[in-house]
Each structure stands twice: as structure tokens, then as C-alpha cells.
């Protein structure tokens, strides 16, 4: 069943795509700059996914409701995809502009570290069969890992700084032309709605996977003498 959020995500993505293609090219970088309409929103979603995983992890530990864990897991998976996309698009853009596929810039290193933290988080989630054990441990790791991200940020900024400073979110006037800024903001907004739609869908899949994995009524859970009782008015 198609949800209204899916339709909104599709429409906004199409609008952002059209805007990204019709706005004039950058005066210096030409059409290559259009890569930013994918790269910047992907990087934004990488941070948003991390924040969502953190908040959902804390919410799970406080309430013990599996819904929060499903959201945290979904956000982690979507985060890996968009962090990878940010790295790849940045690398493709960097080759003609900087002359290299990769450079030891602070923000690049930070994004790569985030990518591997996410991968670890997902690998951890996959290594437990019991949903509650998985939820508790993934929440703890999610909190510890995300708490480290600001420190990673400062450490790599102190270490190196080559990546261009903020263009839009800077004090004073943004250093970007109006139509280009509009296309960029439309892309960021569209990607955010896509993120919400994907997390919503994936969280639902996580819930169904847990339901399928759970022992059904009548199934022995502690020898043949103890079985799962039937759930009145529900169950699978």
C-alpha cells in the first residue's frame, strides 16, 4: 500500500531533480556543481540519521518499547546508504576539482569514520537473534558512538582542514546565488522527506521481521512442557 508520505517523497524528489537540472550552471565549476544537489543533502541525511539513531536508542532504553528500536535500526540502515552516497559523490566531485579522489581533509575523514561506525552498528544488530538483547546492545553502542562524533569532529578539524567552509549555514549572507540556493534547499528538503519515508517503511519491515521470528502460539519454548500461550485477539 502506498502511503501519502511515499507520494510526497516521490513528488518532492522529482521537483528537486528538475530544479537541479534547470538552474544555471555554476560560474566556476560549471555543470559539475550540480553534483552538490545530491552530495550536500546526502551528507545532511548522514548527520540526521545519526541523530535519529541516538534519540531512538535513548527512547528505547527509557521506555523499552520495541518501536523505538525499529526506528533506530531503520535510521542506521538508511544512514549507511546516504553516508556512502555522500562519500562517493564527494569523491567524484573531488577528482576534477581537487585533482584527487580522496584527500585527508577533516570533513572527509569524519564522514568516512561515521560510515564505519554505522557499519559496526548494523553488524552488531545482525549478530543477535533475541530482539530485546539486540535492542539494548545496539542502543548502548549507538549512544557511545554518537557521543564520540563531536569529538571526532574536533579532533579531525584540529588535525586538518581543507574542505571548503560552510557556504549556506554561515554568519551573514550565504555565499551562493539565489536560484542555486533554492535548488539546493529543495534537494535538502526532498531528501529529508525521502529519509522519513524510507525510515518509516524500514521500521515497519523490522517490526514484521521480529513478529515472524517470534515463537508462535503452541510452539515449545522450554522443552515440550512449556509452550507459548495463544494471544487473545491478536498474534500472527
Amino acid at each position, binding site marked *: 500500500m502506498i502511503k501519502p508520505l511515499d507520494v510526497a517523497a516521490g513528488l518532492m524528489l522529482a521537483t528537486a531533480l528538475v530544479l537541479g537540472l534547470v538552474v544555471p550552471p555554476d560560474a566556476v565549476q560549471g555543470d559539475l556543481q550540480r553534483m552538490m544537489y545530491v552530495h550536500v543533502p546526502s551528507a545532511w541525511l548522514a548527520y540526521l540519521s545519526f541523530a535519529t539513531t541516538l534519540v531512538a536508542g535513548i527512547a528505547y532504553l527509557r521506555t523499552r518499547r520495541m518501536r523505538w528500536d525499529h526506528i533506530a535500526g531503520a535510521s542506521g540502515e538508511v544512514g549507511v546508504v546516504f553516508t556512502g552516497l555522500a562519500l562517493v559523490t564527494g569523491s567524484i566531485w573531488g577528482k576534477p576539482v581537487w585533482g584527487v579522489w580522496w584527500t585527508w581533509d577533516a570533513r572527509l575523514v569524519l564522514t568516512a569514520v561515521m560510515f564505519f561506525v554505522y557499519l559496526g552498528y548494523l553488524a552488531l544488530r545482525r549478530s543477535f537473534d533475541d530482539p530485546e538483547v539486540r535492542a539494548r546492545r545496539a542502543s548502548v553502542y549507538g549512544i557511545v558512538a554518537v557521543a*564520540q562524533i563531536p*569529538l571526532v569532529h574536533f579532533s579531525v578539524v584540529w588535525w586538518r582542514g581543507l574542505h571548503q567552509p560552510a557556504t549556506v549555514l554561515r554568519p551573514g549572507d550565504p555565499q551562493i546565488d539565489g536560484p542555486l540556493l533554492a535548488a539546493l534547499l529543495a534537494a535538502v528538503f526532498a531528501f529529508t522527506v525521502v529519509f522519513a519515508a524510507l525510515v518509516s517503511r524500514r521500521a515497519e519491515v523490522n517490526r514484521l521481521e521480529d513478529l515472524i521470528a517470534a515463537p508462535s502460539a503452541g510452539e515449545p519454548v522450554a522443552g515440550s512442557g512449556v509452550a507459548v500461550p495463544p494471544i487473545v485477539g491478536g498474534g500472527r
Partner: protein
Amino acid sequence: MIRHIAILFRAHLRDERRAGEVTLVIVPFGMVALLVVPMAIGIDTPLLDRIGPGLFWVVLLLFGTLVSQRQSASLSESRRDTLTLLGVDPAARFAAAAMAGTVLLTLFAVVAGTVTFMLYDPEIANPAWLGAILPLTCAGLAMVGTIATAVTSGPGARSSLAPLLVVPVSVPLLLAAAQATEGLRASAGILRWLLLLCVVDVILALAGVLTARPLEES
């Protein structure tokens, strides 16, 4: 609580002394790693002098995960249940494991550092500062390792997962330690990096203590 930490800390070290996993396996393995690098990159003495300290920190980070994952660090189910029944706070267990890990990692670092000085001959002004940098780095690595061990322990869990969890999260420790050492080489200020090490350690200690109970429920 402090008495519990002290007893568990001694128990961890006693277990390790009996097993000898760090001293007889991981330390020699780390030394071999330091020895084979020049064979891979060539006998360029100025280059080896330049990369020696950085190589030392990389070896400490990677082999530190092995120290954290040592057999004697993991509690059996029955032992854990006994401690729970005895009313030992999970935070005390975390603190004792992290402290034991710090001691063992510092031991590893001292041996590896000595070997690095012998093989690579790096020039470091004010090596006394290493007396602060080493324990702070080892404490941070031990705490990350202890949390990762707790998160990946238990039936069905993959212990091989721990290094993937530890290494990306330890980036601030690696950068701070390596840059502080570089500062010593260049006779530059290192207080910023020491401050970073202290902040990371405090945050990890808080995270370890606050999340000990939810992990215990597992």
C-alpha cells in the same frame, strides 16, 4: 563499591597472570608487527625515524583491541550471575574491567614503545610527557574495548565484531596521542591534545558507567 572494584580489578589481573594471554601472545605479536614494517617499506632510516611514533600508536590501537578481547576479560555466564546475586553493581564491574585493561594496555605500550625507540630511533623532546599521554590513551582504549566486549559478548554474538566497533570510535584517541607525540618531536604545544584525551576519557567513563546496567540485563 570501591571495595568491589578493587576485588574485581585484582581478579582480572590474576586471571590474566594465569592465562598469560597478553604477555605471552599479544605483546610478542605486536613486536613482530613493529619489526616487519621496515621490511615492507624499505630500510630508509630517516623515513623510519619519521613514521616510528605514528606506527607505534597504530599498533597500540589495533593490538589494544586484542588486549580488550582477551579471554580473561570475558566473564562466564555463571560468574556474571554470581556477581549479580552478590549485589555487585554493573558499573563496578565496568570500572574494574576498564582499569585492568588500562594496566595491561599500558604494559603493552611500554614494551612496544621501548621496541619502537630501539628499532626506529625517533627523536622526541621531553619524553617525560609520554608519562601522561600513554596512560590517558590506554585508559580510553581500555574503556572503549570494555564497552565493546560487553556489547558483543554472550551467546550468538560475534566476538570478531569488536574491532570494527572499537577502531572508528577510537579515532579521537589515536589522533590526540599521535599529534601530541608529533608536538613533542617539533617542540610545539601539546596541551590541546592532552585536553582532548582527558575529555574523551571522561565521556567514555560516563558512557560506560551509565550504560552498564542496561547491558547487564542482557
